[in-house]
C-alpha cells in the first residue's frame, strides 16, 4: 500500500489504518486546522490510506496563509523606510501584497531580515540604537508566547527603537466561523497539537458541546494524525461529541499556565480579518493599551492601509473546504510556488502549495 511499506514501523501505521477502516460505516468529513498537519497529510498521502468515506478538509490552519493582504501592504510600507530593520519569519517574505512582497522590498534595498525568534529582533534593537527595529508578529497561539515575552523584554529594557506589527490569529473562533457557514460540511476537527500545548483544550469544550462536533487535539507525525482521525471516527460513529487529546506527550487540558499569564498581560482579543475568509469576531490578539508604544502600525502610521485580495484567488473556498486547490482555475498555471497569486500557494503549509508539490500529477490523472 502506498507510503506504508516505506515505514519501518509499517505495522503500527497499518494497525491504525485498519482500525479506521473497521470503524467507518458512513461518510464523514473531518477538518484539520493546522498547516503542519495539512503538509504531513499530503506529503505522506495519509488521506489516500483512509476509507473512501472519509474526507479530510484542509482548514484555515496556516498563519502565513490567513494573514490579510492589507497587513502585508502595511509590512511592505514599513520595511521600505530607510531607518527600519524589518524582521520577519522566513515564510512571510514571499507572500504577495497588493503590489509587492517583502522579498521585493529587500531587493530594492530595504533592510529586511529573517529571524528565528522574536528575541533576535529585541537583541538587534539593543545592538542598533540608531535604527528602528520592527518585528512582524504573525502566528497562531503557538507563537504568541514568544512575541509576548519579546514585547515585555523590550519594555523592561526600555527599547524605544523596537516595535511589532502584530497580526496574531486564534484557532477556536476560526472553527466557529467554519461551523457557522451556511454550507458547512465539517463534522469533526483535528485541533492543532502545538496550539493546544500552549492553550490547553478547555476552550474547545463549549464548541464541541454547542455544535455537536468531536474535537481531538492531535500531533504532527503520520501516526499521530492517523490516531487522531481514528479517535474522531470513533466519536462520530458512536454519536459522541467531546474534546479528546491524542497528543498527550505535549498537551495538557489546562495548557501552559505561565505562558497564558504572559499572553494575558501583553495581548487583548480583537476582531481580525482573515485572508480569503473576511473578518471573524474576537479572532485575533493585539497589544494591550499599556504596550501601544510598541505598536508598529501606530508608530509608522500605516493602520489606514486597506486592500482587497485578487478576485481570481479562491483561497477562502479552499480554506473552508468548499473547493480543493486544483479546482482553482489559476492553480498550477497563473499561480505556482514560484509566482504565487494567493497566500496558500506560498507557505509549504498552505493547502495549494502542498497540493502543487505532492499531488499535481495524481490530480491531473484523476480529473
Amino acid at each position, binding site marked *: 500500500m502506498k*507510503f506504508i511499506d*516505506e*515505514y*519501518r*514501523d509499517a505495522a503500527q501505521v497499518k494497525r491504525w489504518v485498519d482500525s479506521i477502516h473497521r470503524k467507518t460505516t458512513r461518510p464523514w468529513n473531518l477538518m484539520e486546522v*493546522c*498547516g*503542519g498537519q495539512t503538509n504531513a497529510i499530503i506529503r*505522506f498521502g495519509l488521506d489516500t490510506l483512509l476509507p473512501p468515506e472519509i474526507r479530510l478538509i484542509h482548514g484555515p490552519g*496556516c*498563519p*502565513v496563509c490567513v494573514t490579510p493582504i492589507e497587513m502585508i501592504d502595511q509590512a511592505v510600507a514599513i520595511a521600505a523606510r530607510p531607518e527600519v530593520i524589518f524582521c520577519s*519569519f522566513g*515564510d512571510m517574505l514571499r507572500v504577495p501584497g497588493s503590489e509587492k512582497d517583502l522579498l521585493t522590498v529587500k531587493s530594492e534595498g530595504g533592510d529586511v531580515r529573517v529571524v*528565528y*525568534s*522574536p*528575541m*533576535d529582533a529585541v537583541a538587534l534593537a539593543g545592538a542598533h540604537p540608531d535604527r528602528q527595529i520592527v518585528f512582524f508578529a*504573525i*502566528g*497562531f497561539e*503557538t*507563537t504568541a*508566547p*514568544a512575541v509576548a*515575552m519579546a514585547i515585555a*523584554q523590550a519594555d*523592561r*529594557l526600555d527599547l524605544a527603537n523596537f516595535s511589532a506589527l502584530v497580526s496574531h490569529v486564534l484557532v477556536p473562533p476560526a472553527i466557529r466561523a467554519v461551523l457557522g457557514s451556511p454550507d458547512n460540511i465539517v463534522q469533526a476537527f483535528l485541533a*492543532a497539537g*502545538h*496550539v493546544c*500545548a*500552549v492553550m490547553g483544550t478547555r476552550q474547545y469544550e463549549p464548541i464541541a458541546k454547542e455544535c455537536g462536533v468531536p474535537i481531538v487535539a492531535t500531533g*504532527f*507525525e*503520520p*501516526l499521530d494524525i492517523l490516531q487522531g482521525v481514528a479517535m474522531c471516527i470513533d466519536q462520530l460513529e458512536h454519536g459522541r461529541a467531546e474534546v479528546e487529546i491524542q497528543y*498527550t*506527550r*505535549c498537551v*495538557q487540558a489546562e495548557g*501552559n499556565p*505561565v*505562558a497564558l499569564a*504572559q499572553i494575558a498581560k501583553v495581548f487583548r482579543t480583537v476582531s481580525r480579518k482573515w485572508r480569503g475568509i473576511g473578518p471573524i469576531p474576537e479572532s485575533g490578539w493585539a497589544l494591550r493599551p499599556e504596550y501601544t508604544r510598541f505598536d508598529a502600525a501606530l508608530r509608522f502610521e500605516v493602520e489606514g492601509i486597506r486592500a482587497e485580495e485578487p478576485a481570481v484567488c479562491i483561497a477562502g473556498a479552499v480554506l473552508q473546504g468548499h473547493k480543493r486547490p486544483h479546482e482553482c482555475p489559476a492553480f498550477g498555471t497563473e499561480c505556482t510556488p514560484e509566482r504565487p497569486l494567493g497566500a496558500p500557494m506560498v*507557505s509549504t*503549509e498552505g493547502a495549494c502549495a502542498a497540493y502543487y508539490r505532492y499531488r499535481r500529477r495524481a490530480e491531473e490523472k484523476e480529473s
Partner: protein
Amino acid sequence: MCLAVPGRVVEIYEKDGLPTGKVDFGGLAKEVCLAYTPEAQLDDYVLVHVGFALNTIDEAEAKEVFALLREVAEAEEQMRKDEEPS
C-alpha cells in the same frame, strides 16, 4: 510555522534576566528561552518553537518521536532512490 521541535536541555543559565538554556536537537545546540518551563531540569526534553520552550515532554515519548522522525527520513530517502531513473 507552528511546528515545534523536541530537544534536550544541556545547559541552564540566565540571560538578560530571563531563564535561558542550551537545547540539543540531535547534535545541534541552540539557545532557548526557558521562561515558560520553570520546571525544566538538565536532560529534560522540551518542545521548542521560535526560540521558546513551550512545554516539557516525557523523555520516553520524546525518544519515540525521534525514532519515528528517523524512520520517516529513511523512508523518504528510500522513496527518492526508488524515484531515481535507473
